[in-house]
């Protein structure tokens, strides 16, 4: 595990406070999408297919901060779209850091070097660049449908590390991923010096152009078992080891769709980051009026049947850690020993 102790403590104390307060539904990570615009058009992405006037829109910093305050989650992830295209990204991040929120700025890194050189960001323990890397050069450039992106991202990672920033990677794996190449990719990222890696199977967005390469549950278990079998000690993952065990099929979890709520120009997205079944005007309305029983594997909803994506299951893993001594013991054991 590579999550800094201060961040672990912030999340742990938050979860304990929620449980002591008797709350059954509470957010862990706010997925804040200030815009949908992007400088890539990846095959597996269902986020950017909108008419021009929608792609031109973005949230104001005040709207973003209002959502952050309303939601209260200790971690804010800024995906998109490409957040480095957001004109006020520097001010937004600085305001979030001032609020002591742990920020994961999810970027394809094409603009990162330029933004770093321009002094848009200051290094902070609260800020981590989460660089989209779907594999080694060939696999990544194929996933993002453009040659040369891997090399640009690697260069940006080096620059960010050189300047003292926290850098993690986020990797989405699809059917056909090669376990050996993926393990080599983990080595390559560790060689670069990133703090940790996040991995997840892709979700079959109905609007994504590539519908043929999404993983079904059993195949996902097989793939992740092969990738994570006998994990190297040097590999650091910036996510719960229990979630990794879930991906490998050695642990079964139910989805926690309210764990990573999503806010964007349309409002609070129902029910989760992946499905768009409507929007609520407030976070309270989202929590109170979404029919949560319709979602998750147990619900029988076919859109949830094969989903194993981190935004639904990582919150479950974190909650599991604090729900029992056994969950806590399993997390500590996997964290300390590095065994999955």
């Amino acid at each position, binding site marked *: 595990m590579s999550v800094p102790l201060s961040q672990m403590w912030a999340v742990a104390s938050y979860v304990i406070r929620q449980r002591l307060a008797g709350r059954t539904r509470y957010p862990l990570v706010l997925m804040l999408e200030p815009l949908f615009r992007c400088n890539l*058009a990846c*095959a*597996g992405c*269902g986020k950017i*297919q*909108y*008419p021009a*006037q*929608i792609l*031109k*829109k973005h949230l104001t910093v005040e709207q973003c901060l209002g959502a952050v305050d309303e939601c209260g989650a200790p971690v804010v992830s800024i995906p998109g779209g490409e957040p480095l295209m957001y004109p006020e990204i520097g001010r937004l991040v600085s305001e979030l850091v001032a609020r002591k929120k742990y920020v994961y700025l999810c970027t394809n890194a094409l603009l990162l070097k330029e933004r770093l050189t321009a002094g848009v960001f200051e290094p902070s323990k609260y800020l981590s660049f989460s660089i989209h890397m779907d594999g080694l050069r*060939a*696999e990544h450039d*194929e996933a993002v*449908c453009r040659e040369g992106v891997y090399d640009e991202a690697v260069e940006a990672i080096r620059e960010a590390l050189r300047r003292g920033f926290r850098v993690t990677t986020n990797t989405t794996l699809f059917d*056909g*991923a*090669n376990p050996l*190449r993926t393990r080599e990719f983990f080595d390559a990222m560790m060689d670069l010096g990133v703090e940790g890696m996040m991995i997840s199977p892709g979700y079959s967005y*109905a*609007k994504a*152009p*590539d*519908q043929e390469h999404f993983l079904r549950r059993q195949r996902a278990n097989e793939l992740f078992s092969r990738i994570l079998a006998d994990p190297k000690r040097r590999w650091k993952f910036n996510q719960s080891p229990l979630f990794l065990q879930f991906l490998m099929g050695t642990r079964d979890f139910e989805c926690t769709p309210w764990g990573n709520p999503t806010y964007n120009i*349309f*409002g609070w997205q129902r029910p989760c980051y992946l499905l768009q079944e*409507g*929007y609520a005007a407030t976070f309270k309305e989202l929590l109170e*009026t979404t029919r949560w029983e319709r979602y998750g594997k147990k619900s029988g909803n076919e859109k949830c049947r094969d989903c194993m994506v981190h935004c639904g299951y990582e919150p479950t893993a974190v909650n599991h850690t604090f729900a029992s001594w056994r969950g806590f013991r399993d997390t500590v054991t996997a964290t300390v020993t590095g065994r999955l």
Partner: protein
Amino acid sequence: MSDTESLEGWVPAIGHGVTLEEVVERAFDYRGNVTVVKADGTRLEGYVFNRNRDVAVPFVQVFDRAGAGPLDIPYADIRTILFTGKDTAAGNSYAAWLRAKEASQQRLGTPLPPGA
């Protein structure tokens, strides 16, 4: 591709085999601009990003073609919705990219990467 691909250009007539609720659902799922024809004959072109039937006065929410909004329109004020804009989710850019890449690599005589 999604089943919305064929909806571009659709001109549904409410009551003729399709209900307003069904058309609203399709419009909500559609990744392009539509034209909302109101009961008074006026038209609003824009993107339907939300709808809610589980409230006392069911409504749709729209950003108009200039991006202004959200504009709330009660179901009761809608005569029909025309699928006039381009469906941005239609097409198959991944397949097109892969074909172009294969062609390029064949020209260069280099093999495709693993998993391609």
